[in-house]
């Protein structure tokens, strides 16, 4: 029988990451969809960087930044008692950066696709920007939010390079499923690697299928 810990850890990591990402990405995507600021392209580029950079690059610099031996890592360790290297918290932090574009992009394009008169109508009716965002804009881009949630979740499951660099391979703490597979292959334990892989394939298929079924309106047709 395989060890279930890596799988549980993987889904835990993906859930926590997605949850936190949602709260970061909504304001960020809203700002990007509204802003005419000159630094907007810079921010957009930074958000999109994880799409093209090898995950190891991100992992490498996070490792340097957070190692308790110097600067930032030392400060975090001393004052907040937070050690981000080789810990679950560190994995969450790295995953948030790594999956950021997968949450921000769908929400941003959802917001940009809404007719500008919707929010203007709300302002003319005396409602604040925040009220308008919560009651008018977000409810009308539910499919985009769902896409963002599912993609970030799935993408976090698929993480390997970043996790390996900053998390290492500590059972029960940072050993996620993708690392476990690598580990099993290294020790020529192919059948365990196969089991982990099949489970991941199955889950990812179901998750992505859900997005297409829900966003494609198939569920609605089915229920009616």
């Amino acid at each position, binding site marked *: 029988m395989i060890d279930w810990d890596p799988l549980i850890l993987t889904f835990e990591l993906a859930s926590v990451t997605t949850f936190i990402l949602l709260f970061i990405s909504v304001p960020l995507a809203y700002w990007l969809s509204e802003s005419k600021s000159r630094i907007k392209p810079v921010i957009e580029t930074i958000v999109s960087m994880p799409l093209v950079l090898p995950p190891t690059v991100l992992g490498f610099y996070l490792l340097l930044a957070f190692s308790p031996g110097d600067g930032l890592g030392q400060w975090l360790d001393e004052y907040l008692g937070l050690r981000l290297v080789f810990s679950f918290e560190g994995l969450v932090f790295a995953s948030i950066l790594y999956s950021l574009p997968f949450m921000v992009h769908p929400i941003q394009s959802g917001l940009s696709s809404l007719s500008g008169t*919707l929010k*203007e*109508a*709300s*302002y*003319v*009716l005396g409602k604040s920007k925040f009220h308008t965002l919560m009651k*008018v804009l977000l409810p009308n881009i539910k499919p985009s939010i769902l896409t963002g949630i599912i993609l970030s979740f799935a993408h976090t499951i698929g993480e390997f390079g970043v996790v390996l660099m900053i998390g290492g391979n500590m059972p029960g703490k940072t050993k996620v499923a993708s690392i476990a597979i690598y580990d099993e292959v290294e020790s020529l334990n192919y059948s365990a690697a196969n089991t982990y892989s099949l489970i991941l394939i199955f889950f990812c298929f179901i998750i992505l299928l859900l997005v297409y079924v829900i966003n494609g309106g198939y569920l609605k047709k089915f229920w009616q």
Partner: protein
Amino acid sequence: MIKLKFQKLLSAPKGEMNLDLDIVIKEGSVTNLFGSSGAGKTSILRMIAGLMMPDTGRIIVKGKTWFDAEKHINLPPQERRVGLVFQDFALFPNMTVRQNLDYALVRNQTIKVIDELIEIIALGDLQNRKPDTLSGGQRQRVALARALVQQPDILLLDEPLSALDQKMRTELQSHIMNMHRRYGLSIILVSHDVSEILKMADEMIVLKEGNVTDKGRPADIFTNRKVSGKFQFTGEVISMEREGFLYIISILIANDLVKVIADEDEVKNLVIGDKVMVASKAFNPIIKKL
């Protein structure tokens, strides 16, 4: 009094255009903004609503300054008492008709306002429908009702009836005029439709490339102030038939088809579909109680 005096440099399709407006609107009147597309009509409405900022000038409504470039006053749209019906209606798709109206309520208002509006604008049967299941005319009515919930000082209508057929138009025109009379609303109406303007507007402002070229009573402007007929209607030429040396022209005035006899000179410049005015002053009309 509503004082609108402002300038704004706009980028129009043909390059930059300076919008220059200096008008005073009487409270409780209906004012029409007339002009070809790109003349700056929608921009004027947006500046009154606070969705666009003029470069210079002032907007003063009922003694309250909404915008003053010199004093750096620029009230956000939230603080201007204005109702705006957008060209695309801008109904919130995630809410039902009723929820769209409820959304507009301000803190110390009761739902009585909404019940009243629903009754006047006959939205009772549509209350629980979502906007995407409504026809153009129904959406228009909801947008109108929503703009009136807060009982604004000015109601801005941006070509509200352009997408509707004649019957729907007539019906909505009377809804708007009902509201106008009931609440003493000041209305600024962007419209191209001659009969609509004549029917609804007290004042008319003609814009060309950002400048006011004419203003006055619609009937005076449309007839170039030449005719002083006691009876005049506008209509559309439906057909022209030759009968001997005369022509019989069928003209649609509101929902009635009227036949008028005309000679060759009068017909020369007419084509089917033309908007025309039918006026007469040398006869004595008979009034009969219905």
